[in-house]
Structures are given as structure tokens and as C-alpha cells.
């Protein structure tokens, strides 16, 4: 079975790759900041999907996908700020950014 790679499929592949890299980073790194970076990568992969689906979707003339992506980026920025703030506070408190040692919120 032969398959032709359309531009959309190409974008989706890149996005999936990006997501996988982000996920791997988030799962394997112990440094909290690197985990945050991995999460940002996954978010941007999702944004890339949004843009791609808009651009090659049925109504590319309406700016819905773009708006969605911009919103998402804004939210991601806020989220990154909150996350970094938390990491800084935790660092000040525990003198470490190692996630394995931050396990006090357990049942």
C-alpha cells in the first residue's frame, strides 16, 4: 500500500515527533525546569496541529485556528510563568530542583 504524504500529514508527523520529544523529556529528566521545557514542547506540538488543521481544513479563510493557537500560546505563557514561580519557591524551600525528592504530597 502506497501512501502519498500530503502537506497536512507532514505537519502532523512533525507535530507528533515534537510531542514525543517533549513527552520523553518530561518523563526522563529529573530537573524540574527541563520537565517544564518538555511540557512546553508538547503544548507547541498541539498548537502546530491546530494551525495545520485550520490551514488545510474546510474554512482556511476564517481565522479560527489562528485565534485558537494564539489563545493557547497566551495560556501556555501564563502557565509557564506559574510553573517557574512554583519551581523557584520550591527551590528556595528545599534547595533542590530534583523532582524525585519533591514527593511530600503523597497519601
Amino acid at each position, binding site marked *: 500500500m502506497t501512501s502519498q504524504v500530503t502537506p497536512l500529514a507532514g505537519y502532523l508527523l512533525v507535530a507528533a515527533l515534537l510531542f514525543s520529544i517533549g513527552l520523553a523529556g518530561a518523563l526522563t529528566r*529529573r530537573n524540574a525546569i527541563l520537565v517544564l521545557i518538555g511540557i512546553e514542547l508538547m503544548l507547541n506540538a498541539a498548537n502546530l496541529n491546530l494551525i495545520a488543521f485550520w490551514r488545510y481544513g474546510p474554512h482556511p479563510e476564517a481565522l479560527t485556528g489562528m485565534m485558537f493557537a494564539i489563545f493557547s500560546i497566551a495560556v501556555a505563557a501564563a502557565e509557564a510563568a506559574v510553573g517557574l514561580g512554583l519551581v523557584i519557591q520550591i527551590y528556595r524551600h528545599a534547595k533542590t530542583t530534583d523532582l524525585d525528592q519533591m514527593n511530600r504530597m503523597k497519601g
Partner: protein
Amino acid sequence: MQEQLYQFNLASIGTPPQALIVRWLWLIPAIPIVTSGVLALLKQPRQRLSAGLAIGSLSLSLLLSLIAFVHVLNYRAMMLGISQIDHYAFNTAAHETVNLSWIQVGSASVDLGWVLDPLSAVMLVMVSFVGLLIFIYSTGYMAHDENYTRFFCFLSLFAGAMLGVVISNSLLLLFMCWEIVGLTSYLLIGFWYQKPAAAAAAKKAFLTTRIGDLFFLLGIVWLFAQAGTLVLYKGGGGAIEPTALAGLLSQHAGLGLSAATAIGLLIFAGAVGKSGQFPLHVWLPDAMEGPTPVSALIHAATMVAAGVYLIARVYPLMQAGALAGGSTTALTVITWVGAFTAVFAALIAVAQDDIKRILAYSTVSQLGYMMAGLGLGGVAVGMFHLITHAFFKALLFLGAGSVIHGCHEEQDIRRMGGLRAVMPLTFATYAIGMLALCGFPLLFSGFWSKDGILEAAVKWHPSIAPFIMLVFGALLTAFYMTRQVAYVFLGKWRGDKPAHESPAVITVPLAILAFFAIALGAIGTPAWPWFRAFLDGRAVAFDMRGFAEPGLLTLMCLSTVVVFAGLGVGQELYGNKSPSPEAPDRLEQLAPHVWGWLRDRLYVDEFYAATVIAFYGWWARVSDWLDRRVWGGLVAGVTWAFGLWARLIRFLDTNVVDGSFDKGCEELNVGGGLLARLQSGRVQTYLRILALSVAALAVILIWSSRP
């Protein structure tokens, strides 16, 4: 429920606007009662404030009473003009009433209300005036008592309740106030409750009057059942107005009595208890354990007169069924009880040595005179003696208080003597009171009021015996009062510490009361019988021919002779003799046995102790045995059975219920621990699970969307 019926009895001559004082008459008792509530909240040391409040409130009541009295006078004058035309209208309109519906049960309603008529107006003024003087006197007499505020609280409550009794137009309201009056009497007799004698006297007074009150209550209930209302005057629909009375007369109560008579006798039993008439008089002499102002106010002037007032208030009921000039069974009973009490108590008073006890028996005797006066001659005769007696007996008691105060709380007349020189003011006023009580001719009020009773007695058809008894009582009265005065004021001082005169706050009320003890006679002389005319609703004019009535002058001469005989014998036996306290009394030397009986109060108390009280003692022991053995055993058995049951339940509880519950809890605990292990606190573990789940979800989605 709040429906107000402003009743007007002027149906036949139109309805003039009701006077403000009638509508606001309830303020007269309400003010002292509210004051007593305020006083109850005050701290003990607030002497000036509490006395001021009590005196101020009673002054207000006195002012309102005077306004009411003047209103009745004017009303009377207006009505006398009308009555020339219509006598019936006059009789029905004599009572201005306000009735309120209190409780509505089905078709029956219980009404409360107040009445303003000559009877209540006279009593209002008397009670608030004598009360006010005694309040003022008390500020001096009780000055060193640590429970000063409490005393005025009780006095105010008493004054309010007594004024409530006076204005009640409903037997129910009257009964309520009557009971409050009984309560305050109890509280004040036992005011010095540290003294065992005072506490016992208070209990005795309360229980003895309760016997009378029980009969009174029965009478009230019966009257309500028969007449359907307890309101006395209600524009023709009241319980003692002709319509209801006719119904009561036609009912037979058994023993040949009509319901009216039976109810009248039951109500009289209440009056017997309150007014210390013969079988139930035993509490009154013991009541002298209370402070002297209390003896003067409650146990001489006002409360004990409430029984007499009650009979006067329901007089139409007592009189129901009498033919013109005739007597009824109820009135006959009242007469005999009164006359007997008058002689009986006077006899005992002869042989007493406590200054207040003599006065107490004298009060019982005089109350007998009032009752006899009501039975023999009607409302005006008895009420006139009530009013004059209130003044001179209050005077005598306050004088006795002054003597006791001056003699350092000594009450035994054998340890006094010669006080005439030391306490001139007290002696002068006491002598006036004593002469008024004896019925010294012409000058003193007691003569005219007692003469009215004797005059009625001599005209009484059924028997002449009450007349003879009352004349004998008058002789005894003059005698024992002379004995007392001779012991206290004449001769030489036989006490330990020298006596002293009392302060002005005590002597000024004495002087005022002494003035009235003389002056009140002027409104009841045969020449100008204003008081009788006022109560009976007739016009009156000054007419010396009043003395010319057949037999009247003879009677006056007779009573004069009797009084002088009593005074003379007393003076002969005791005057200026100053016997030593330990020496036997002059009469004791003459007739030791009789003296012994009289000194021991004719053994009435002993008789009760041997019969009624012994029976109750036995009955109490039986009840005690029943309580301990029978009921106690039953209760113990039930308790034991429940104990057994409880033990069984406890066994089930520990072994069955608790066991299963504990097991369940353990399971939950283990399960919770397992689940808690999932929450490790490691963020990346959570993320890993999330990622695996998403991957698994993706696999499932792809797998299931396969064509």
C-alpha cells in the same frame, strides 16, 4: 381575644361617655405591682431609692383613688337627680364597669373586669391612704433591717394586689388578686425567716387560709357552672344581678338549700379563712411574728378586711331570696359566726401578755363584729365598721410598734409600764386608738360604727342572742384594752433598759391616723348617716331627728354604760398597780382555771393539733409507708428489670455489634492504604501513568476504528 367590651349599665337612660378614670382604673393596682417588680431587681443597699419608689407609687395610687372617689361622688349626685324619676335605672346604673374577655372556650367566655362604685371607691381610698401612712412609718421602723428593699418590694406587691381585690368586677380576677395577697401575707409574716417561730407562723397562715380558699374556689366554679359568668355586674347579665340570681335560687343544692345559698356559704368560707373567723382564726394571732408595719397593714387594716369586703361585694348573692326585712340562711350563718367570733376572740384577748397578740385577738373580735354587721344590717353597717376599724386598728398596731421600738424589741406588756411620761406622743395617739376601739361615746369613730351594728342586732328578728353576745364583746373589748394600756403606759417602768420616744417618721403617721380615728365618726352618726346613704344610694341631709328613732337613745345609753363598765373594771383591777412581771395576773388570782384556759387560747390550737394535724401526721406516715414499701418496691423492681435488660444489651453490643463494626473498619483501613500507595507524590510517575494511559487509549481508538 383582645376584644374589649366597654359595658355600660346605663341602658335605660342613654349612654354618657365613659369617664377616663373608670377606663384607667386598672392603673391603681398596676402601679404598685410594677413598682414591686422594679424593687425586686434593686440591690439591697438602695434604701432611699426603694422606699421612695414604693411611697411614690402608692401616692400615685392614692391620687388616682381620690380622683375615682370624687368621680363617684359627682356621678352619684348626677344619678340622684335621675333617680327621682326612675329608681330602677338608678340601681342598675350604680356600678360603672369595664369588662374584658380573657379566655374564650367554645361558647363560654371568661371575662375579667373592674368596677367603680361607692363600695370600691371607699375601699380604694382607705387601702391606699392607710397603706401610704404605713409605708412612711416603715421607712423609720425598718431602717436598720438588712432586707429593707425586699420588704418594700413585698409591701408594694401587697398594696397592688389588695387594690386589685378592691376593684375586681370578676370573681376570677378577685380570686387571683386574693391569692397574691395571701402570698404576700405569707412572705411578710415570714419576713424574719431566721426565726423559727416566724417561719412556722407564715406556713400556718398560708395553710389555714388555703382551707378557706379551697371552698371559695369551689364556690367560684359552681357559680360559673350555674350562672355562666363570673363577672359581677354586666349591665344586667352579671352573676349577682337579678337575672342570674333568680336562676340560682331556683336550683336546689340539697339539704334544703338553694344553689345561691350554697354558693354564698362556700364564698363565705373563703372569707372566714381570710378574715380570721372562728374555726380558721388560729393563723391571725401567730401572724404577729411578722414586722409590726405588716401586722398593721395586712393583719389589721386591709387584708383581713378583704373577707368582709368580699361578702359586701357579693352581698346580692347572700341576700338573694330574702323577703322584705327578712334574713337568708347565708346571712344567718354569717351573723352567728361573726357574733361568736367577736365574743370568743375578745375572751382570749383578756388573758394575753404579748402587746401585739392582744391586738391580734382584738382584730379577730372586731372582724367578727364586721361580719355580724354585714349579716344583721347590710353592707353599709359592716363596711362602716371596717373603715373606722382600719384606721384605729392601724393606729393601735403602729402605736404598739412604736412602743416595741422604744422598749428595745420588748413585746411582753408585763415588762413595760409608765411609758406615758417617756413616750407622750405615742401614749396620746394610742389612747385615742384604744378609746375608738372600745367605742367611747360620741367622740370616737368606733362608737358610731359599733353602735350601728348593735342597732341592727337589736332589730334582728330571728334571735336576740347575737345582740347580747355583741354587747358582752363590747364590755370585754373595753376591759382588755384598759388592761393593756394600764400595763403599758401607767404605773412605773418594769423593764431593763430605759425606753425612749420614737422619731417623727413614726409618730407623724400615728397623729394622722389618730385624727381619722376621731373624725371618721362624723360621717356615720344617726344625725347625718352620710356613709350609709353613700353606699345605699340615697340622698342625705343633716337631721338631729335621726337620734329620735325609737330605742336608739336607750341603745346608746346602754352601750355607753357597757363601755364605762369595761373601762372602770379594767382601771380598778390594773390601773397604776404596776405589778411585778413575775406576779400572777389580778384575774388569775381570782379564777386561776378560767385564766389558764383563756391564756392557752381556749385550746383551739391544741384541739387542731390533736385532731386535724394528728390525722394528717398519721396519714403522712401511712403515705410514707406506702411510698417506701409499695411504690418504692415497684419502682425498684422495674429498675432491676431494666438493669437486667441493659446488661443483656451490653453483652450483645460488645460481642456482636462492636465486633462486626471493628472488622468493617479494618477492611476499610487496609483498602485505603492500598489506594494511598498510588499517590506517591512523584510527579513524573503520575505523568508516566498519564502517558501510558493516553498511549493505551490511542491504541484502543485506532484498533476499534479499524474497518
